């Protein structure tokens, strides 16, 4: 195979040589028929392929090129390996030869032209004829044509000059003459000649025949020659059997300690010992260290033994003996049993934990023997800590609970998000002389009714502050309260002045509504008339319900339609939602309990006293309101609010706000619809505003103490469109709150203080006396003791 590789390497060279050969052959064939020459060549090549037997002859043919021989020799060797490969190889060489063939063809054609004309006529750049002569072939007509073409032309120089090169000189054409084949090539040729197997060239002396050696004998000879063990059975690479293993046996054959008899005393050591003993005897080495001077000096320092006379002391709170430490356990051992040693996980957990959180201050460690125990690494640190302890130096930073007090407060929405709510005064209603005691915005939200100390009831245009109507109800008695009848079908204003209640129809409505209002008020006359007139004797009794009467002509002209002489000063009026009933409360201390609370029926001109007896505890009644949807009447006396079911005539609930003197209260308008139950706000003269969730407790859910003086009035925004409520105080300010009642039972009402509205002047210790909301907008109006009313929006 090595030879094959060599031949492949030389291929490129081979082809060059082949071409050269072609040219030469062309010259020879110049006079012959071209076709024949081609076919001859082809035949030659074919014959190359065919005649694999007659290599030697072929070699003669190609003797001019030694490389070709190699080629052919190669082709000889290949068949011995495998026919197929050999064929392929030969075909490839054939192709190479064909390439050379074409070259030859071209050169012969040129020579043919030469025979006829040795020039061509071409057109030059100017269009003139131009004779182009073929290159002169120096071979033609050469005087030296007889010179051997293959002779070396290097002249008279030593051939050793070419030792480095593959060629030995140049022929007449300047082509390299390759070095002729030497011994190697001849050896190769000889090798290729087949020698029968076992041929030795020797003669067997016993038989006289040529000595033939069998394969086994040859192998034997080879082994002897190679210095190998000639025995065929012998395997030099047998697997190793470890008779004496490399591994040490753990268990010794005998556990007995090595006997002392095996001890061989060291002579050298004995010599050394003897030397020391001799030195001690002679006094050269002292067994004890002589006392140094330093030790003697230390005697000057007085040393105290603190514990010298320590005696056991009895148990006493002032003396706590140091705790007795438990004896060390296995963990503390320098060589603890393996089960005490921490595994990887435990070690990691211990390392990750904070020093304070560790169960033990150390990890059990196995040092094997006591002499391997290192110095205690924390020694210095612990001594230092101990010193600090003794100095009482604080060094552990106690982390205080770092809680922002703000975050503990419940999250309240900011007032900006809760807009709209009244923020500024939009109108001032000036006209009343003296305090304005009460005011109310009519159900349409266009008019404002006010009543004051001057005994007048006035109606104003709400947004502009224009007074449109005024009537003087009492000469020297103040108007204590004005309230519009709810509902837009009629415009009726109820006012309490002095001992009387007045029902008026202000001339602000259109004829239709005005007529409806008048009809509503007039309808009761007939009903009242149908009843038997009260006996004079009953008139005397104070508990007899009063008869409704027509007003004086002057009042009737101004729009007052009905007068109810209550005989006591009514301080509050509260209409039922439907507008047929209203409740008045005469809160004066001198009023008999039985007539303090009166319910008036407009359609029947009827006044009833539902309570015969004084409410137990809490003083005289202060104010009363109907529940916005249920037939429940809330009555507040000085300290409690009681809810009475009017249909069943029962006391339903007692609310105890804890205030000393309730001034007013209001019921949340959507209490009816919200599932959360009734919500009340209560204002008291002791400066408190209390929010009650009746479902929650009798006690207030929230107590708001923001006013400096008594709260006079509290009011929810009606209709529930805006979750607002407001209170009015004697300190001259109003406070607006956001009070959102959610429908579900789980969340309590959110109460956010929104705005303090200031503007009313404090007159005679009184500030704002009444407050009311616009029925639709987030606007509120307030009545001040300074004689003005203000619209806030």
């Amino acid at each position: 195979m090595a030879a094959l590789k060599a031949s492949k390497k030389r291929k490129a060279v081979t082809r060059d040589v082949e071409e050269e050969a072609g040219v030469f052959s062309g010259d020879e064939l110049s006079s012959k028929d071209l076709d024949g020459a081609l076919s001859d060549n082809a035949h030659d090549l074919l014959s190359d392929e065919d005649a694999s037997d007659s290599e030697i002859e072929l070699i003669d043919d190609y003797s001019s090129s030694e490389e070709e021989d190699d080629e052919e020799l190669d082709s000889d060797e290949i068949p011995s390996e495998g026919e197929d490969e050999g064929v392929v190889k030969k075909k490839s060489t054939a192709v190479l030869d064909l390439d050379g063939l074409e070259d030859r063809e071209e050169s012969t054609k040129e020579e043919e032209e030469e025979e006829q004309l040795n020039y061509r006529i071409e057109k030059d750049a100017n269009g003139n004829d131009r004779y182009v002569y073929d290159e002169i072939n120096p071979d033609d007509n050469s005087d030296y044509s007889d010179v051997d073409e293959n002779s070396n032309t290097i002249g008279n120089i030593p051939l050793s000059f070419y030792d480095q090169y593959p060629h030995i000189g140049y022929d007449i054409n300047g082509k390299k003459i390759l070095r002729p084949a030497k011994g190697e090539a001849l050896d190769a040729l000889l090798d290729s000649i087949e020698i029968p197997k076992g041929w030795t060239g020797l003669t067997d002396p016993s038989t006289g025949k040529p000595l033939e050696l069998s394969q086994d004998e040859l192998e034997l000879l080879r082994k002897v020659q190679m210095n190998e063990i000639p025995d065929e059975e012998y395997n030099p690479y047998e697997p190793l059997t470890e008779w004496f293993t490399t591994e040490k046996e753990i268990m010794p054959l005998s556990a007995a300690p090595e006997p002392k008899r095996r001890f061989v005393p060291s002579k050298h050591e004995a010599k050394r010992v003897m030397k020391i003993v001799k030195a001690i005897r002679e006094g050269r080495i002292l067994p004890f260290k002589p006392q140094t001077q330093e030790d003697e000096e230390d005697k000057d320092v007085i040393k105290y033994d603190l514990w010298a006379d320590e005696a056991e002391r009895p148990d006493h709170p002032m003396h706590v003996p140091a705790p007795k430490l438990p004896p060390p356990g296995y963990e503390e051992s320098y060589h603890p049993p393996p089960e005490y040693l921490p595994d990887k996980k435990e070690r990691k957990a211990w390392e990750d934990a904070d020093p304070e959180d560790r169960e033990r201050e150390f990890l059990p460690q196995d040092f094997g023997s006591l002499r391997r125990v290192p110095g205690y690494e924390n020694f210095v640190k612990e001594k230092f800590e101990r010193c600090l302890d003794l100095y009482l130096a604080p060094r552990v930073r106690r982390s205080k609970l770092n809680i922002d007090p703000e975050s503990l407060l419940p999250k309240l929405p900011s007032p900006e998000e809760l807009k709209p709510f009244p923020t500024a005064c939009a109108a001032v209603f000036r006209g009343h002389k003296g305090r304005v005691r009460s005011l109310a915005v009519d159900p349409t939200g266009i008019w404002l009714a006010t009543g004051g100390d001057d005994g007048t009831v006035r109606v104003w245009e709400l947004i502009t502050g224009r007074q449109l109507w005024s009537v003087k109800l009492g000469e020297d008695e103040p108007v204590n309260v004005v309230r519009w009848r709810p509902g837009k079908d009629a415009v009726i204003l109820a006012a309490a002045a002095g001992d009387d209640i007045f029902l008026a129809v202000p001339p602000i409505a259109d004829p239709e509504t005005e007529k409806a209002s008048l009809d509503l008020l007039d309808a009761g006359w007939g009903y009242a008339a149908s009843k038997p007139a009260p006996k004079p004797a009953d008139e005397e009794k104070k508990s007899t319900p009063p008869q409704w009467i027509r007003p004086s002509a002057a009042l009737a002209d101004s729009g007052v339609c009905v007068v109810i002489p209550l005989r006591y000063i009514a301080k509050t009026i509260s209409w039922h939602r439907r507008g047929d009933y209203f409740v008045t409360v005469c809160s004066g201390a001198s009023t008999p309990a039985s007539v303090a609370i009166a319910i008036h029926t407009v359609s029947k001109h009827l006044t009833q006293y539902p309570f015969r007896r004084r409410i137990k505890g809490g003083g005289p009644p202060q104010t009363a309101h109907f529940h916005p949807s249920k037939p429940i009447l809330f009555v507040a006396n000085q300290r409690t609010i009681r809810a009475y079911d009017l249909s069943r005539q029962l006391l339903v609930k007692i609310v105890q706000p804890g205030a000393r003197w309730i001034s007013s209260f209001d019921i949340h308008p959507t209490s009816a619809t919200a599932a959360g139950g009734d919500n009340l706000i209560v204002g008291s003269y002791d400066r408190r505003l209390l929010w009650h969730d009746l479902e929650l407790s009798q006690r207030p859910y929230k107590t708001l103490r923001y006013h400096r003086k008594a709260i006079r009035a509290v009011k929810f925004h009606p209709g529930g469109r805006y979750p607002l409520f407001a209170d009015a105080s004697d300190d001259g300010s109003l406070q607006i709150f956001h009070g959102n009642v959610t429908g579900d039972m789980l969340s309590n009402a959110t109460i956010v203080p929104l705005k303090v509205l200031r503007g009313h002047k404090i007159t005679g210790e009184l500030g704002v006396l009444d407050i009311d909301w616009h029925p639709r907008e987030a606007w509120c109006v307030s009545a001040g003791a300074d004689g003005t009313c203000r619209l806030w929006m």
Partner: protein
Amino acid sequence: MDTSQVSVSSQAAQRQVRVQLTSKQEDIALPDNTGPILVPTGLKRYALSTLVNNLLGNDKPIPFEFLINGSFLRTSIDEYLTANGISAETTLEIEYVRALIPPLHIASFEHDDWVSSIDVLSTSSPASAGSDAIARGQERILSGSYDGFLRVWNMSSQVIATSPSPTDGGHISSIKAAKFISPSSIASAGLDRTVRLWKYTEAEDGFSGKIVPQVELYGHKSGINSLAVHASTNRILSASADHNVGFWSTKKSDAPAAPESLLPSAASRTSKRRKLNASVSVSQRGPLALLSGHTAPVSDAIFDARDSTVGYSVSWDHSLRTWDLVTAALVDTRTTSHSLLSLQHLPDHNLLATGTSARHITLIDPRASAATISAMTLRGHTNAVVSLARDPHSIYGLISGSHDGTCRIWDLRATKTDKGGAVGESVYSISRKSLEEEGKANSKRVGGEGVKVFSVCWDREVGIVSAGEDKRIQINRGEGVLSSS
């Protein structure tokens, strides 16, 4: 060139920017060959104004305002560039216009009672459209007062005519709205729930006249807050507190009969009032249509400035409603978050300005395609804005009268963008002369007490006319208050 000189002189001082000064008004325009000028960025309005005056070679300097990208320069150029992220390398297009001249007080006409509404009759007022009868100086001012009387004033603060008393067919309650329909006819309405049409005649000398009742229009069940008249189609819109918008005809023949139940004679009470109406008989008519839809008192109603078949109304129920007046149908409802108290149409911007109870003016795009309800908010008043009028000189101008006792002039260009959208600030504020006379010009009245402005009107000839709780009509010069470009 100026360019090089200016630049060399102040090169070291500070950053400079190349500005191109332009003006749309020819009389103050710079010559055409004026190229971009390099100016220091520290310049403010005054310095720029001086620069332009120098360039123009004016003997008497004209104050100028400078508009960059449609907004007035209120800071130095440097701050403007920084605020808007504009590179100083670019050439800045600056448009300059004549600066606003503060409106000056001209006259006050005293009344006996609060003046609720005013209207002006002049050549340019809508009532006189088509007739040039009103000579300069012969303008008339109509005032409606809370005492129930209409008054017609000439410019010399003389009352030419007063409407008759309730016994002679006049308003039996306060007048809330009064408008000239034409130079010879007047419409008024008030808390007595009627719209009344009057015939107005003047004597030859122009110093006396008569207001004669013509028609009483019944239909509203509550006070009427405002009126809008469209003279050419003889239509009136009224906004009433009974939640309805009334649509009326000014012609007696067109109008249907009045609803019986609303006539004053229907009321069973008030014999006195029946007596009042007995002396003069005036024909009574009803509405063409009552546009119902609002759920709260309607505060203002107007015709579309370009299309008389479209009406707009605003109400306390927070909504602005668009009405098709031909079919009396509700077209569109835009709900805001505040009670709306006044309305004015700005046809050039397709916007409706409405004054709110929340002390600002909201500009609403009424078109259905508008994505946001509020296009711009004008803030500055401290009380409810109850009256709005357009600037006759500029499409960007607007005046508002508020219960805080001021009239504020707004320029829609003078805006800045806030987190809640574009917010404008007023250009000028006109306070009441009555306050100044009392020597309390600077004192603020809580809730506008005594100085509330109820009505404001801006006429090209007469100026800014406003009336209010101080019982007087106040006239301020309105020309050139706002740059007209």
